């Protein structure tokens, strides 16, 4: 029988050995990248809400403190979504006839809470507690980003476990003085490398063993 392969088969077969390696490596890289993409984590995407509430305007422009609305953040696991009454405190006086705010007035009239859409949704097997973070010097901004620059709320962080562990493994990178927790655009007064470890000690933040123990978050 004559030759079944042309002469070029030599080159092709040698090239394919290399190609297989690169294709496999490339495929691995693509999978790992997609896993961390905004498409998967839903970070950096505006979420439509029943009312076009702007944190940029309220927190940034007017300068209302985060805790005026999220009252429970220092004492409970959930930061708390404000009741409609909190809105009405001001909006009975200003913009009281704006059509944009009709859902808010309706909610107040009918005594039916606004159905906000959750933006930061952790898996149900994770027990996150706002109060411990805020009272140990983790700033709102550290996780939620520059809320004062968001016309509509969006998730800024991946909320993936490696992101949580990034801080749990070394909280000194992020902690701030307690009076600076709600500040947006915070800059440490002295180098964080010096301030961080000092604050960690002062707040008595637990060591690596406890902070990375499974049952700290998965109970």
């Amino acid at each position, binding site marked *: *029988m004559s030759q*079944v*392969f042309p002469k070029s*088969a*030599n080159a092709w*077969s040698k090239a394919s050995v290399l190609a297989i390696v690169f294709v496999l490596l490339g495929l*691995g890289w693509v999978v*790992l990248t997609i*896993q*961390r993409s905004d498409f998967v984590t839903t970070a950096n995407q505006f979420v439509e809400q029943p009312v076009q509430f702007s944190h940029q305007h309220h927190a940034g422009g007017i300068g209302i403190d985060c805790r005026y609305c999220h009252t429970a953040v220092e004492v409970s696991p959930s930061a708390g979504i404000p009741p409609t009454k909190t809105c009405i405190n001001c909006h009975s006086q200003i913009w009281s006839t704006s059509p944009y705010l009709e859902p808010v007035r309706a909610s107040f009239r009918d005594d039916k809470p606004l159905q906000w859409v959750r933006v930061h949704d952790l898996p149900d097997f994770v027990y996150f507690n706002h109060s411990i973070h805020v009272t140990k010097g983790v700033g709102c901004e550290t996780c939620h980003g520059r809320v004062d620059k968001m016309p509509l709320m969006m998730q800024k962080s*991946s909320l*993936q*476990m*490696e*992101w*949580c*562990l*990034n801080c749990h493994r070394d909280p000194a990178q992020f902690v701030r003085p307690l009076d600076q927790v709600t500040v947006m655009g915070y800059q440490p007064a002295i180098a964080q490398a010096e301030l961080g470890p000092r604050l960690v000690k002062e707040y008595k933040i637990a060591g690596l063993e406890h902070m990375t123990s499974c049952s700290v978050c998965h109970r």
Partner: protein
Amino acid sequence: MANHSNNTAPEESPVILPGHDFETVTEIVAEIPLSKRFPLGWIGLLLIGLGGAGMLHMALGYLVLKGIGIWGNNVPVGWAFDIINFVWWIGIGHAGTLISAILLLFKQQWRMSISRFAEAMTIFAVACAAIFPVFHTGRPWLAAYWLFPYPNTMGLWPQFKSPLIWDVFAVSTYATVSIVFWYVGMIPDMATLRDRAMSKVKATIYGTLSLGWRGSARHWHRYEVATLILAGLSTPLVLSVHTVVSFDFAVSVIPGWHATIFPPYFVAGAIYAGFAMVLTLAIPVRRFYGMESLITMRHIDNMAKITLATGLMVGYGYAMEAFFAWYSASSHEKFMMWNRMFGPYGWSYWTLIAINVVMIQLLWSRKVRQNTTVLFVMSLLIGVGMWLERFVIIVTSLNRDFIPASWGMYYPTQWDFMTFFGTIGLFLTLFLLFLRFVPMISIFEVKMLLPQSKVKADHAH
């Protein structure tokens, strides 16, 4: 090499029967993959194998839908069929590696006729074994991050202190080296098939698989070097893989598992079960395909002897387990042994003793070793016995643990049995496909046993 064969005792039969020359060896082996014939017996067995593989498919499909609750294992017997079958299959694979690696390094010529399909058996057995740890997680698509270290989004690595992760590396290394070794060893024969193929399609397929082999002196030189390196890589695996498998148990603190005898005891058991499996496969294959002149009674006899030797080591392991239970003076160890012998699963212990200790003594007799029918039945029984050994070790150590209040019985469900017999079907299917489409005996190696090649072989080695 010729010297070795001169040393053999006069009553010992030759490695291959006389009357063969280069042409007949090629013909008898290469004819099977190249022929257009699909023998009826082959088709019948393949249908049985496919039936089993289909059943495996169903069982695993239902498992993925429902979760591992469909299996019988539950506290206190948290490990059962999944790990019994895993250890059983992995153990079976060891004979192939021993034949192709250790016997190669020891220049045992008789390995040449049986190495190819023993290696195939290894690979298919490892494939069957791998199904169990992957599917016992219940969500096999997530098993990747439970088993393999890769930069995942949880920022977590597997627990490197756990023998279970050592197991992953041991078994995946084993599978990789075995496949590469098997394939490299086949390249010259694939070229033979390419050259003898009568149709363009077959020539192209076997030509691709032969990777451009021309049989030049340089090719052979590289081939010899590669084989030697791979044999060197495989040799420690014969010992290490089952050692690590035994660590799954020995590193724990369960009475009956926490024993230093486990690694050698498991390795011996693996080779014992593996050689029994090679006999189970070789005896019908050589008769069915008329290969009695290439896989001779010498092979059968040698394999039976290795089975006996390793079987005796396994028997020593059983004796030591009982001895440790007494000598440790630990009441839990003693109770475990009593429970193993006279507890609710006592029947399984005594059956395995009957097979693995009592029955194999028959192999001392040359008459038994020369009787293929008896050997075939015995090899099947050894398969059963070694399965029972893992059943005894796993279930009887767990079903009555430290607190009597938490004792419980283990009963496998239909899904356990369907998965187990399903993997046997899968193995049968893969092995039948191998027999039909791949040269089941290493053509070029067997040729080295012919008198015609002796002159050259003496110079070459």
